[in-house]
């Protein structure tokens, strides 16, 4: 008696999917809960990556608006550790550098404390610094006014002051006007303007800015600049930076500190990066726990469904087809969590970015990477249960009830 060689039939991909979804359909709550573990991990990681990408996008937008060609020159320290001074003529010298397009100095008027009224005791200084400021400062640092006007040639000679954003807050002054006055070094100054916060020169926020001439005439300002703000042609910024020290203080170039404030902005954001790393780590742990949850669900599923496995074997399922059924179930389970988590993470990113007024950015790499990671996890979590299911002998499996 001869008979044709037997070959097990292949399963259609659609059937494979349907068979893999049997466990999910019959136990939806359990499936949802174990997918949730994965979803939380993926959501955390996608949100962390998305939020930091959105923050970076916002920074790029800010830098585009502010420009990255602002350089500042300040006095460093002498060889002996004392505070150095910039020469009086340093501002003019810096202005003579070819590619420098704008220059404006401020000079700290030490001992000139700022009060709203005479009634406040001298000990409560309020942390406001008085600076003598040159007229081009506003344009050079890219500051804008919240109220009133900036100093001009006329007001720079009279007791007129423009307050930085936080200085105005501290003094409780909401708007500028001819009748709004503050006491600086014992002299009444009229508040002619209030600045918005200055992103590239945050040291101006808690400052009272008065005209150079007024500072010298009324507050005995010594005329030494403490910070020189310059803008250079974009392509020449580095070259200008290299010569600024020697130009500002030819006699002791080492006593000059040159910096590029736009470099500090990413560094300031980077301070949050350690936190980001921590959150990513937490997300990874959540993902791992989720993977263990899926593995656990799969092991239980195989134990509970021994009779079903036996039946399928009697209907002609091969070991391979049983194996792939449970592997598919595990993959489906974690893919469900992965897709849900990626969507949730993107939603959290969008919500947080909207709240922070950032452009919401969820990198596609994070989304696809997240879903791919869940597939790897699902595969690993399902491997052992699937192998166990396939190893069951049909009679043993059928005997289980």
């Amino acid at each position, binding site marked *: 008696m001869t008979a044709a060689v037997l070959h097990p039939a292949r399963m259609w991909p659609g059937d494979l999917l349907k068979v893999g979804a049997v466990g999910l359909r019959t136990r939806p709550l359990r499936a949802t809960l174990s997918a949730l573990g994965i979803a939380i991990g993926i959501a955390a990681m996608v949100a962390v990556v998305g939020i930091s990408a959105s923050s970076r996008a916002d920074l790029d937008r800010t830098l585009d608006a502010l420009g990255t060609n602002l350089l500042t020159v300040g006095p460093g320290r002498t060889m002996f550790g004392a505070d150095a001074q910039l020469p009086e003529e340093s501002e003019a010298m810096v202005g003579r550098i070819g590619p420098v397009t704008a220059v404006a100095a401020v000079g700290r008027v030490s001992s000139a404390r700022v009060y709203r009224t005479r009634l406040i005791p001298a000990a409560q200084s309020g942390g406001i610094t008085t600076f003598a400021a040159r007229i081009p400062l506003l344009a050079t640092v890219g500051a804008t006014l919240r109220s009133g006007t900036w100093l001009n040639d006329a007001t720079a000679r009279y007791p007129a002051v423009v307050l930085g954003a936080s200085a105005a807050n501290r003094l409780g002054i909401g708007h500028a006007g001819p009748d709004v006055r503050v006491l600086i070094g014992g002299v009444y100054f009229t508040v002619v303007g209030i600045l918005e916060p200055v992103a590239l020169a945050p040291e101006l926020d808690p400052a009272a800015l008065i005209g150079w001439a007024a500072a010298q005439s009324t507050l005995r300002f010594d005329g030494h600049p403490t910070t020189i703000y310059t803008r250079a042609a974009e392509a020449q910024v580095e070259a200008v930076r290299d010569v600024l020290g020697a130009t500002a203080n030819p006699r002791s170039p080492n006593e000059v500190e040159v910096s590029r404030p736009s470099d500090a902005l990413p560094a300031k954001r980077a301070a949050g990066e350690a936190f980001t790393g921590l959150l990513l780590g937490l997300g990874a742990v959540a993902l791992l726990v989720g993977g263990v949850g899926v593995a656990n669900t799969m092991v239980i599923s195989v134990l509970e469904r021994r009779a*079903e496995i036996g039946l399928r074997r009697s209907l002609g399922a*091969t070991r391979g087809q049983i194996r792939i059924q449970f592997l598919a179930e595990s993959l489906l389970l974690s893919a469900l969590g992965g897709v849900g988590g990626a969507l949730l993470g993107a939603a959290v990113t969008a919500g947080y970015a909207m709240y922070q007024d950032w452009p919401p950015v969820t990198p596609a790499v994070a989304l696809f990477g997240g879903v791919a990671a869940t597939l790897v996890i699902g595969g690993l979590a399902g491997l052992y249960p699937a192998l166990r299911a396939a190893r069951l002998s049909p009679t043993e499996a059928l005997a289980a009830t």
Partner: protein
Amino acid sequence: MISLTEVRKEYPGGVVALDGVSLEIGGGELVAIVGPSGSGKSTMLNMLGTLDRPTSGGVRIAGYDTARLSDAQLSALRARRIGFVFQQFHLSPGVSALENVADGLLYCGRRPAERRRRATAALERVGLGHRVRHRPSELSGGERQRVALARAVVGDPPLLLADEPTGSLDSAAGAGVMDLLLDLHAAGTTVVLITHDREIAERLPRRVHMRDGRMVQDSAAPPLAAVNARRALAGDRGGSTAIANERQAP
């Protein structure tokens, strides 16, 4: 259709469930396997259904020497040639009768539409054309077993194996299932069933009696064999007779 030669099955732990059983079943036969509990009936049916391999001895099913077939090939043999009915039905609880029956063709490589069409026909054949959408929990015991029967025959297997198909049914429902098995036999299917029910067994053309892993009587055997079988039962281990189609335990 089926030929067992000196089939022995020893379970780990030393239990000998089958102790040298030889049996021939021709195509289209209807055979009852009877015997006390623990005598090896289910073990023998598992051999016939290729769900388990013998410790020693030969099993030929539908022309295939099962010892030469791989596990995957045995699966293919079950998918195309053998239908099973179990005492516990083994229906999937969450899905309709139709889907349960259609699953009988899942591992044959048939397309879903064809599977559903044939499943509907099989359900009609067992008299459940009006219960197609019902879930197993919405069916009576007898109806459930008829769904299981429809699933077993949806692929028109030449061999149907049933392990106490009426074991958990009342006599009326059991009779309904038996009628269906008789119909299938009449239509040419080889049917082997295990039953504890004497009345049912008496109605069947051939009965194979098992005891302690041995075949002690085969009603289709000629008188000599029956005598030998009785002698074997009495403890006389006489020489084995090898009559084609009917063998007895040595």
